[in-house]
């Protein structure tokens, strides 16, 4: 279809060009023919004026003669040099020559009369040479004009044919363009339908994966919780200890499933924020409280700093709970026993800053650019020293981005790391933001 349109358009351009060339040629032939008629008309006028002068000897009658001669002299060269083809050029060159001879004869008659030789002047008119010249001029004029008229007719026919061809090609071109437009529109509709099908497939995948992955782990969680609650009978100390370890493993498994599902949602553009207004400082304190036991288990010191006054934000509380929790969890994992962690929340220039600073192992400079990648694990983690799936920082950064914020990181190897989550205080527009 595109090829047909291209060919039709190209043919139209060539046809129009040919039409313009033919039109120019036809115009030149027509101009030449009109010019020739004017020259011959002036020759006639000059001859009449000359005759009157020869008969009367009245010099005032030479004025129209001289005007006609001047006009002929001016017009004759342009007729011969007009752009009208070789055969016509030759005919007009002969005609020019005859016209010049005729003018010479007329001038000779005038010159004799002016010299007082009225008989000699009359003889130039009556001579056989003059009669012959007139006949030749008449014959050649007729021949040249016939040739010009024939050429003009041919040019006009050619223009008519080319115009018809241009019309036909334009119709084909128009139809091809219309077909192309319909084809492009159809492809566009198909693309939209495919995208919608893909969106539905993504929704179904996330929904199904969510159900299928969580359900077995939920079953185990339910049984373990009843066992440890001694709903099925008393447990001894050793059984209770290992039951609690099993519950911890089950919780880790559910957390990893949750993170994987959130990653799938982010990738599918389905992580939707549900914004409400709440105090971010209270959320931070709550996260610290949630993780305090795990931090204390490593004998780490946790310092929480919050502003004197509540710091309200409009954001997705649950997602930020996860994101800030991931940052704090990360600090705990990569800080050695007895290390220090500081969690600070405040506002700077209208933005909320949540700093998580640790005295941990730090990050190599070359590694910093990769730490927010999916499934990225630090070298210590790869050695099996730190648990996790490498999704926590990725999700934290994506959640910050969804809120219109970001996470900045600075680190010194062996000294510690500082993550700063910067969030706008938010407005209701955040509510409908998604991971697209």
């Amino acid at each position, binding site marked *: 279809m595109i090829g047909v349109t291209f060919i039709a358009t190209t043919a139209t351009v060539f046809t129009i060009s040919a039409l313009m060339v033919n039109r120019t040629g036809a115009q030149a032939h027509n101009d030449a023919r009109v010019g020739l008629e004017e020259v011959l008309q002036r020759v006639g006028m000059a001859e009449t004026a000359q005759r009157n002068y020869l008969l009367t000897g009245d010099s005032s009658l030479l004025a129209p003669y001289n005007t006609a001669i001047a006009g002929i002299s001016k017009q004759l060269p342009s007729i011969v040099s007009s752009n009208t083809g070789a055969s016509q050029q030759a005919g007009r060159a002969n005609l020019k020559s005859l016209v010049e001879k005729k003018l010479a004869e007329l001038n000779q008659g005038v010159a004799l009369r002016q010299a007082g030789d009225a008989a000699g002047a009359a003889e130039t008119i009556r001579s056989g040479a003059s009669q012959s010249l007139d006949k030749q001029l008449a014959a050649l004029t007729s021949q040249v004009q016939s040739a010009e008229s024939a050429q003009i007719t041919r040019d006009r026919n050619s223009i008519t044919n080319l115009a018809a061809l241009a019309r036909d090609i334009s119709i084909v071109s128009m139809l091809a363009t219309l077909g192309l437009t319909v084809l492009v529109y159809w492809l566009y509709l198909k693309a939209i339908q495919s995208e919608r099908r893909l969106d539905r497939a993504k929704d179904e995948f996330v*929904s199904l994966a*969510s*159900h299928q992955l*969580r*359900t077995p782990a939920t079953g185990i969680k*339910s049984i373990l*919780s*009843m066992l440890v609650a001694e709903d099925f009978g008393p447990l001894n100390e050793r059984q209770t200890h290992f039951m609690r370890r099993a519950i911890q493993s089950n919780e880790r498994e559910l957390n990893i499933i949750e993170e994987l599902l959130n990653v799938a949602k982010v990738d599918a553009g389905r992580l939707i924020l549900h914004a409400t207004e709440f105090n971010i400082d209270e959320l931070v304190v709550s996260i610290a409280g949630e993780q305090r036991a795990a931090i204390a288990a490593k004998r780490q010191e946790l310092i929480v700093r919050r502003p004197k006054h509540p710091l309200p934000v409009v954001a997705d509380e649950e997602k930020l709970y996860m994101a800030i929790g991931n940052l704090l969890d990360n600090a705990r994992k990569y800080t050695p026993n007895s290390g220090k962690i500081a969690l600070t929340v405040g506002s700077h220039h209208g933005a909320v800053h949540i700093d998580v600073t640790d005295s941990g192992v730090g990050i190599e400079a070359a590694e910093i650019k990769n730490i927010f990648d999916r499934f990225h694990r630090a070298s210590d983690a790869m050695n099996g020293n730190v648990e996790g799936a490498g999704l926590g920082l990725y999700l934290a950064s994506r959640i910050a981005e969804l809120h219109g914020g970001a996470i900045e990181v600075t680190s010194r190897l062996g000294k510690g790391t500082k993550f700063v989550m910067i969030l706008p205080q938010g407005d209701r527009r955040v509510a409908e933001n998604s991971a697209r």
Partner: protein
Amino acid sequence: VLPKILLVEDDDIIREIYAMKFELEGFPVASAENGQVGLVKVAEFQPEIILLDMMMPVMGGLEFMRELKAQYEVLPQVIVFSNISAPKQVDAVMRLGAKAYWTKSDYTPDRVAEELSKLWQGGGSVQTT
């Protein structure tokens, strides 16, 4: 007096363990493995609370809610109890009259029993989690 609970859940383990926990806590309990059996049990057992899974064979939670709403003028308290992550389906079932959505993996039988007791004592006020 504790409320009668109908558990509509296709997973055998979860159905069994939750039914056992509710019995231990003194709740009258019945269970159904899908929405279609669930509708029969609603007629027979006349529960005051239904814990409803969403993704089930034969008849899922959304279709169950549609049928329930079509058959009864006054609905029991329906709590969607599922691991599904499909906001559109959850919205639809909430519009049909479900009281709350609880993510199953966030709960233990002990906590659900406690929440249901509170719900019953508190006259039906319940939070979606």
